[in-house]
């Protein structure tokens, strides 16, 4: 199964030292609804101009350093095509971040 999933993950941790989280996109599942782009609290994503094989424009990462790994994108994605996860980070900061990204309403 995993072989079928073309995953766009961030290439090098060293380049994005500031990032507390990372987001992965399974581009072939995406139907370009834009939910992840709109509701990412730190605006990490944008819909790309590239097509997937079904003709949709999947999101791509425009501000990787802002990703907290909160997985709100994953919670919203109706196509199970994106998810965020936290990277190992100094504990205190990671916890503060996790509290910030609640969408209480």
């Amino acid at each position, binding site marked *: *199964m995993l072989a079928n999933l073309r995953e766009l993950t961030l290439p090098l941790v060293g380049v994005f030292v500031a990032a507390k989280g990372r987001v*992965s996109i*399974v581009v*072939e*599942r995406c*139907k*370009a*609804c*834009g*939910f992840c782009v*709109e*509701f990412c609290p730190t605006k990490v994503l944008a819909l790309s101009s590239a097509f997937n094989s*079904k003709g*949709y424009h999947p999101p791509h990462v425009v501000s990787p350093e802002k990703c907290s790994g909160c*997985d*709100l994108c*994953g*919670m*919203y*994605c*109706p*196509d*199970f095509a*994106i*998810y965020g*996860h936290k990277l190992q980070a100094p504990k205190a900061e990671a916890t503060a971040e996790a509290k910030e990204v*609640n*969408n*209480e*309403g």
Partner: protein
Amino acid sequence: MTTLVSPIPGNPVEPFLRSDRMPHIWCPGCGIGTTVNCFAEALIESKIDLKTLALVSGIGCTGRVAGYVKLDSFHTTHGRAIPFATGLKLANPGLNVVVYSGDGDLSAIGGNHLIHAARRNIDLKVICVNNLIYAMTGGQTAPTTPGHATTSTSPYGTFEPSFNLPHLVEAAGAVYVARWTTFHVRQLARSITEAFNKKGFSFIEVISPCPTLYQRRNKMGDGLETMKYYKEKSKTKHGAPTSEVGLTLNGEIIVGKFVDRDRPDYSTLLKAQMHESLGDKYVDYDEEQGYACSADGGCEEDSCH
């Protein structure tokens, strides 16, 4: 105890999906998939033993959930998810039985089952994805379609009064009633977790976009536009009187936990009555004969897992 854990940090919903059936058939911007993420989150949060879980759907776009989750699931006949689920629960009281279906399935053809399961307080967790329409069959008016909405069967606008589902199920006897929209992902996950900790008939309504049929015919934009509308027009009012939470075409959406109360469920009442009438002659078949399929077993049958 069966729990599913991804070996690498992956999408938390993935272990609960039949990945070989992806991509699913739901349209771009359809909200049903989003509700599935919340359901998966609730399963993780509540640490529920998946061996004790059964998911039952009727027919419709929402009914497809039963076919996409990697759980013991039944995709039953239209309107009859609750009767199937009731049978499962009574025959095997150790199961946590979830009914996951659409507004049409649950409140139109299955409407009588809905009110009577609530009245009898059968221990079921009902997740009703309300897209205000019969989506799968082409967007016909449902009992939930708000006044003035255009549908394939009401091209000049709906004029029938609609059901306010939280009000209906509260009046019928549900012990837990909440409503969220697909915008409220964390809150929805929390409500589902709460329902797992409740004994009795729980009902969670999720207002969800059907951009292909409902929003398009009503010129309400796509799924994302609808999500923004939910964000803007929803007002959280926990404990709001359910008589005041009816939906309108473009108006405010009252969300929150409306009802959280306790009353004895169907099995408890059944046993109490039988003990009263039959005394020692009555044997609780689930407890004393060990039929309950619970985490620590008792049941010798492995084939049912």
